[in-house]
């Protein structure tokens, strides 16, 4: 099947500090994945795992240290405006930060229409804007001439989606789109992604720390931890039968809205984020309940387990054969 977006061995290293004492931090470490047309792909992980940096690189706001980002078969050169040429749009985490509080929201719509030359005159422009707003359950009348503060967070987030739809993008990048929206309104945003996929064939890169909505909405998922993708595959498999010990921990840390399923055992917390980034071997080795000698020394390779890829020595070939010998 054709690939809409292909990420090939993407790496981003940030340097901090002065010339004398430079600290290097690998925020994204050699990750590869791809997104197919009309697919919702979730990139999930905790804060500081590199998921937002990845999104910024795909949008072209940040240039990768190494690796390639290939949009529908063409590699993107540095500094190219991908959102202009490749049909990419994005929505952001904070609905109140997405629009300038001192300007009316509709200005962004008209500017988009004008800059991309989407309509011949104002009537056409309003028609187009109204159509896109209808797609997210709003209308032109209820939004024209209003400031961001006159909407609720959920409404603004839907307006944000409507704006991104103006250019008929093939890929929508949603960076934590629901984390600042009220729980009662979250599903209206998430359902929107499903509709976009089914009705318009839009792919969504859904970046989130919320595995429950990721499970609900996405087709495939990649779990990131300290810059690595540790597990990737169909969402049913990764979240219902997690293989990597980190995925298992994440999955079990989600409080389920069911008083019957309370947590009944305790977990260990990491206190040393920085140390985890600097680890030579598997970055989860410090907390992993099934840690082995090899984990501390060597970074595991991707191993296919079922339909998913897992980066864990527990499933690697050498380990398997050892296990069999024992």
């Amino acid at each position: 099947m054709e690939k809409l977006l292909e990420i090939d061995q993407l790496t981003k290293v940030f340097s901090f500090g002065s010339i004398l004492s430079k600290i290097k931090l690998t925020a994204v470490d050699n990750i590869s994945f791809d997104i197919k047309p009309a697919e919702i792909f979730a990139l999930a992980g905790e804060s500081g795992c590199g998921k937002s940096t990845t999104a910024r690189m795909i949008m072209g706001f940040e240039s990768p240290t190494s690796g390639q980002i290939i949009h529908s078969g063409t590699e993107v050169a540095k500094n190219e405006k991908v959102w202009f040429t490749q049909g990419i749009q994005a929505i952001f985490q904070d609905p109140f930060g997405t629009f300038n509080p001192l300007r009316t929201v509709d200005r962004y719509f008209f500017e988009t229409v004008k800059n991309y030359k989407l309509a011949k005159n104002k009537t056409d422009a309003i028609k187009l804007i109204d159509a896109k707003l209808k797609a997210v359950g709003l209308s032109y009348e209820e939004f024209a001439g209003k400031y961001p503060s006159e909407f609720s967070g959920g409404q603004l987030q839907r307006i944000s989606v409507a704006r991104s739809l103006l250019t008929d993008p093939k890929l929508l990048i949603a960076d934590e789109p629901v984390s600042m929206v009220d729980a009662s309104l979250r599903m209206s945003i998430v359902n929107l992604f499903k509709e976009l996929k089914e009705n318009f064939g839009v792919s969504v890169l859904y970046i989130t720390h919320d595995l429950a909505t990721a499970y609900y909405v996405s087709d495939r998922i990649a779990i990131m931890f300290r810059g690595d993708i540790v597990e990737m595959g169909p969402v049913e498999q990764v979240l219902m039968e997690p293989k990597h010990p980190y995925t298992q921990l994440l999955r079990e840390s989600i409080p389920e809205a069911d008083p019957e399923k309370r947590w009944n055992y305790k977990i260990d917390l990491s206190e040393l984020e920085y140390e985890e980034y600097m680890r030579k071997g598997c970055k989860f080795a410090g907390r992993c309940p099934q840690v082995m000698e090899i984990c501390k020394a060597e970074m595991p390779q991707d191993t296919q387990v079922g339909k998913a890829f897992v980066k864990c020595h527990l499933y690697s070939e050498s380990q398997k054969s050892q296990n069999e010998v024992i």
Partner: protein
Amino acid sequence: MKILKDLFKDYRFVVSFGILCFLLTLALLTFFSPYDPALWGEVPRDMPPSSEFLLGTNSKGQDVFWLSCFAVRNSLTVALIAGILSRVIAVTVGMVAGYKGGLTDRVLMFISDSLLVIPLFLIIVMLAMLVREMMNLLTLGLLLACFGWAWDARVIRSQILSLREREFTQTAILSGTGTLKLVLKEYMPFATPLVFSTLINNMAWSIGMEMTLAILGLTNLDIPTLGTMIQWAVSYQAMLLGYWWWILTPVILSVFLFVALYWLSVSISEYLDPRTRVQRVGA
């Protein structure tokens, strides 16, 4: 109109607005002046205030009332030239430095920091001495404009730096908005209050600076300004000779001008503060 209505609820604005209107009327009156301010001896010398000469006359044979009208006009002109030009420089430097970053930022900020740390007054005095031959209202305004932008450019730069990280910047970029438009449309509204309130502050600073230079005798003394009026009155010993109307008129006018500008700047900047503005839009 609504803006003025809201502003008129603030007594400071009302008072300062009234004073400024009065001073502007004086400035406009110059166009109907019966005397040429450059000429001496048009009226009898050293007359105290009377019905014929509203504020008396001075030792140069000039009518103090009409002379001070010209002085207010010229002082305001210098202040406006200096204020507006330095705002343009401050906004341009601040926005370019803030948005471009990198080397451009470092060079521009080096210049503005240098202006901030060197003793400005001495430099201005030195430069004023150098260009004394061609000193007129415009050159004086330009000279003051060159030195009045550094701090405000820094403030605007830091504002842009934080705005650049806000998500609506990315929304605008994704909407296909170019850099220039982005800066003007998205960031300018945040910088406007600052530009306005500092414009007025800067005008007050310029008027003060002009007076200092004039009293030091470094400006063109043939052009009547509040500063040169005081300078002439002082050099003719107006105080000692009891010609109080000659020296008190420019002094009182300057005090009025400073108070008006200060209250205007305070009330406008309170009104334009983006935080209260956001609240108002929400209310």
